[in-house]
């Protein structure tokens, strides 16, 4: 399908060097269709898929942790309720990016520590903790692969967004009017029945605006994957946008970084727009029967 590409690339390359030769619109179009389907470009599309995949894996982890945090906060055991209370307010005080950097490293070091102390270097005289420095022996040291990094990123994102979610769920559980639950008790429903038949189903309605907002924040936090050393769309945009010289490249071009990043911006804009559309629909469905006092009155 792309057999013509080498020829077109060569032709355009020649034309760029020689003012006398001109490139027709058709050739330009062909050149672009070839350019956008090079191996490197296919990786940026794959990277976009990886971003969506990470999103898909993060959501269940975050929801699970969010529920555990919010429910744990109301626990009878003070230790659990205090840990969960801290978890719920954690991201309010500390920037999420610190967790993104901290959590993967911590997990990595945890594994290295186990490897260092129990598997590889039991006889080594070198301690794992050497003052402020941490030094695993060479066999125990992990060289992170792309796959490892992605898994660790999902865990880190899950923990951070679980904290956000816990905050939302905690608030939504409290927002369900007490009378709704009390009525359940008044009819003889057990605590568990009241929770699963009344409290939880009504909670969703109050949590949905928060979740919608959180999903948008999550989408907009995915570029930070780049900072974790993951070869995501930003990595490739940076790579592909660089000026490509005639000497080293089949498809030479100027510095197109700006265009690449604008394209990324449009990608994210489309993603957030689509999400908002879906959430508006969802909210309409969940709203069925639930009238929550509208505080915003339309201005005439």
């Amino acid at each position, binding site marked *: 399908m792309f057999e013509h590409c080498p020829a077109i690339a060569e032709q355009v390359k020649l034309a760029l060097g020689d003012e006398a030769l001109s490139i027709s619109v058709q050739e330009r179009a062909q050149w672009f269709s070839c350019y956008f389907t090079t191996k490197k470009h296919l990786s940026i599309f794959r990277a976009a898929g990886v971003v969506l995949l990470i999103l898909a894996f993060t959501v269940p982890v975050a929801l699970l942790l969010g529920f555990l945090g919010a429910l744990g906060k109301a626990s009878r055991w003070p230790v659990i309720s205090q840990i969960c209370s801290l978890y719920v307010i954690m991201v309010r005080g500390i920037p999420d990016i610190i967790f993104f950097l901290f959590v993967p490293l911590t997990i990595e070091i945890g594994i290295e520590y186990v490897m260092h102390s129990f598997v590889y270097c039991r006889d080594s005289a070198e301690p794992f903790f050497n003052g402020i420095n941490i030094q695993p022996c060479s066999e125990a040291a992990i060289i992170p692969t792309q796959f490892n990094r992605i898994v660790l990123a999902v865990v880190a994102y899950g923990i951070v967004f679980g904290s956000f979610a816990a905050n939302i769920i905690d608030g939504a559980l409290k927002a369900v009017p007490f*009378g*709704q639950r*009390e*009525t*359940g*008790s*008044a*009819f*003889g*429903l*057990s*605590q568990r*029945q009241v929770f699963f*038949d*009344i409290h939880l*189903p*009504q909670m969703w*309605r109050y949590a949905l605006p928060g979740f919608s907002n959180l999903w948008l924040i999550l989408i907009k936090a995915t570029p930070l994957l780049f900072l974790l050393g993951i070869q995501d769309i930003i990595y490739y945009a940076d790579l592909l946008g660089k000026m490509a010289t005639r000497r080293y490249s089949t498809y030479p071009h100027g510095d197109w970084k700006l265009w690449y990043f604008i394209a990324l911006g449009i990608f994210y804009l489309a993603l957030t727009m689509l999400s908002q559309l879906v959430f508006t629909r969802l909210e309409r469905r969940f709203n*069925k*029967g*639930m*009238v929550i006092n509208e505080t915003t009155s339309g201005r005439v």
Partner: protein
Amino acid sequence: MPSADTSAPAHAPDPAPEAATGPASDAAPIIALAGIEKSFGSLDVLKGVDLEAGRGDVVAMIGSSGSGKSTLLRCVNLLEVPERGEITIAGEAITFSNKGPARVPSSAGQVNRIRADLSMVFQQFNLWAHLSILENVMLPQRRVLKRDRAQARQRAIETLDRVGIADKADAYPSQLSGGQQQRAAIARALAMDPTALLFDEPTSALDPELEGEVLRVIKSLAEEDRTMLLVTHDMRFARDVADKVVFLHQGRIEEEGTPAEIFDSPKSDRLQQFLSASDHR
């Protein structure tokens, strides 16, 4: 409203719990409260109240706001736990653990059983907002009485028909007027086939023009010889439906008697004051 066929199933399960508690309960009152004391913080709301309602009795509790009448009603099905005093429902005494403010019923199972047997109608209706009217009436039947879907549905439609809003079965509470919502709440209570019904100011949250439809339904229930405990601010209604009227004042029963005794020849000054004030309402 003809009630011969609908009231039959409503009373059918009654003998069951009584049989379980033995023959002694045959003559026992359905609801018996003795020496109920309750306080919120430093505020003593109930200061030793005794109250009895026999089978088929309609007892109306009146009094100014803050007199403790609603709290007393909520003590009956243990939405509030009194610090002192005994509660006996259909001959079965509720058991408590601990003392004072920490006092709690010892058995959650017993409490839930009692509550299922005493259906409550709230001032704010408290229909579950996420469920349709039909689902509202079905939920407690299914979860507490363990009726299957078909049974619960049938009973729900019967009771909704009984209160005159069967056509609203699939609507959500927010789509109904206050009067319709309260009638749905009454249907939900009736569908549990309770031994007694508890009404907590059932018309206070309604516009005057919607009160009538709800009052008519409650009155028709009273005429079926149901056991009912009723907190109300509507003196005319209390006189109309009640067999016994109880006047509470500052956490104590100041006076009780037949409607005629209470309304026509009040003995205490407080009751006289209260009645003359509420006449001008």
